[in-house]
């Protein structure tokens, strides 16, 4: 059962080959048996899942149901779920039970998906290794001494280990794509505004975007179709029709113009990653794509600009955790200031505190122009690079991450080295562009991901390219040893 993709499960459910309860039980059993090795779930909602599965079977029996009826999914624990703890992997929200569902949760449920639980992540989505979680690190199913990437590391590990066929993630600087690459699955960060942020706990509001993670581009397309669309409750949601992503998959690649930014193949890129990505580019060529080198000259400034914009917005967003309305509150506060200081000092982990302090500093009196305003100007230069590139090419391809999965603890005490894990992914967030990572092989036995970046709202084109690549290759079918 667990080897089936979402598309295959949905088909089998509609054809009556198996029931939603059988599917749900099979995946719950796998989580029970195998997640002790990975720690990819924070909360498993078995009873609720079986209830939803029974309702799905009832709908299927009556001949109704949507494209995902009876298909199990897991949500990153950053999406609010009514009546189920939403922790954001922080001590601050360890006891927080959201009083409402996020739009993404609501939409996937309306499409018939069955929620199996909430997945582990870096605390408040701040991290690239899933080691900053209050609930302990997630392990990479390809090598449990290594990180799964982050921040959506629980979702990526769970999907790669076949504990769930699809999951949600969020991506502020690479948090869907980098773990997808390191775990050997397919993950998409949609265009800013494509998927509602309502009920998705805010990190950096001008960058955050939720998106789907699954093993195949076809499955990602099915999930995105259910997640995307206008939501009046999110003031940055874009009112634009959602295309039929599944229908776009079949388009041949003949004539597709693919750009390889020379800045994405320079110093710091591991040889094995480069070789796998270059081999994948040759597959696209053999499918009829025209490949040319391009330049995104502002690339080296993306990480610096991001580490102004993201912490500044985070320091403002996380001001809401004050120990008064919900979440953690320190014991016996002396006065109001002590309540704020200790609640936040004890409730947040080290990386979150670092980012709040950086953001507070850069926004403090006298520094705004030198940091935030400067970063916003650099942000335009980065966006302009892409605007020029997309006059020449249809998609941009390159490595998702400069290395394969690194060892647990290796970068934990060195925030700047950790930040450079996202050197190829951050620019797409700053420019609001859709970008996808797909598995394109292995280096030293660990998965390598290739990133595809597209024009605003051209998720369909990215999924189409990834699907055509997956028709020609088998990398997306590889299962981690011990999790087959």
């Amino acid at each position, binding site marked *: 059962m667990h080897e089936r993709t979402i598309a295959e499960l949905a088909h089998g459910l509609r054809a009556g080959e198996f029931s939603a309860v059988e599917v749900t039980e099979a995946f719950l059993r796998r989580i029970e048996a195998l997640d002790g090795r990975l720690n990819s779930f924070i909360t498993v909602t078995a009873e609720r899942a079986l209830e939803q599965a029974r309702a799905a079977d009832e709908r299927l029996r009556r001949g109704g149901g949507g494209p995902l009826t009876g298909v199990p999914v897991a949500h990153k624990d950053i999406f609010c779920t009514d009546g189920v703890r939403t922790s954001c992997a922080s001590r601050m929200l360890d006891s927080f039970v959201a009083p409402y569902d996020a739009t993404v949760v609501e939409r996937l449920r309306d499409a018939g998906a069955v929620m199996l639980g909430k997945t582990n992540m870096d605390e408040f989505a701040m991290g690239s290794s899933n080691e900053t979680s209050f609930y302990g690190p997630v392990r990479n199913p390809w090598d449990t001494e290594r990180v799964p990437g982050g921040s959506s590391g629980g979702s990526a590990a769970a999907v790669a280990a076949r504990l769930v066929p699809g999951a949600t993630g969020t991506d502020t600087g690479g948090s869907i794509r980098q773990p997808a690459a390191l775990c050997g699955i397919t993950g998409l960060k949609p265009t*800013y505004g494509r998927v509602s942020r309502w009920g998705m706990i805010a990190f950096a509001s001008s960058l955050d975007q939720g998106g789907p993670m699954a093993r195949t581009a076809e499955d990602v397309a099915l999930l995105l179709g259910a997640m995307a669309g206008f939501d009046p409750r999110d003031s940055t949601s874009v009112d634009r029709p959602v295309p039929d992503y599944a229908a776009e998959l079949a388009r041949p690649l003949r004539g597709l113009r693919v750009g390889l930014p020379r800045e994405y193949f320079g110093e710091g890129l591991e040889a094995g990653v480069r070789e796998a990505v270059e081999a994948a580019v040759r597959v696209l060529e053999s499918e009829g794509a025209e490949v040319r080198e391009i330049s995104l000259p502002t690339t080296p400034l993306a990480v610096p600009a991001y580490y*102004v914009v993201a912490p500044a917005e985070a320091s403002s967003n996380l001001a809401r955790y004050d120990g*008064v309305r*919900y979440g953690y509150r320190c014991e016996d506060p002396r006065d109001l200031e002590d309540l704020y200081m200790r609640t936040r000092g004890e409730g947040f982990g080290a990386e979150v505190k670092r980012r709040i302090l950086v953001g507070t500093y850069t926004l403090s009196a006298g520094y705004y122009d030198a940091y935030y305003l400067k970063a916003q100007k*650099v942000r335009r230069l980065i966006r302009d690079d892409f605007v020029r590139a997309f006059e020449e090419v249809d998609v941009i391809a390159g490595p998702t991450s400069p290395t394969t999965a690194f060892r647990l603890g290796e970068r934990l005490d060195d925030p700047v080295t950790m930040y450079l894990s996202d050197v190829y992914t951050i620019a797409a967030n*700053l420019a609001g562009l859709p970008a996808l990572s797909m598995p394109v092989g292995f280096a030293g036995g660990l998965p390598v991901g290739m990133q595809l970046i597209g024009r605003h709202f051209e998720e369909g084109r990215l999924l189409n390219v990834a699907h055509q690549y997956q028709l020609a290759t088998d990398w997306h079918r590889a299962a981690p040893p011990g999790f087959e």
Partner: protein
Amino acid sequence: MSLGPDEVRRIAWLARVAIREEDIPDYARNLSRILELVEQMNAADTEGVEPLAHPLELPQRMRPDEVTEEDRRERYQAIAPLVERGLYLVPRVIE
């Protein structure tokens, strides 16, 4: 930009985040390294460049000035750390 212990204490107070005294040197070192990374931006000539605040440069949407929220006070207060008679309790502010 290199930050010293006093600056870290001041920023932590501005952010209302208590940092243990023994952790201050680590924060000073890491924050300084992050600011060094960030300052690579200064290499870019941004003379005359308009700041980009929204990646799609779309204006905020307007909506009719109507009440759309329902009253969910009880539900929201049920998850608060300390509530009494419908009020959120904090330490005494005015003596």
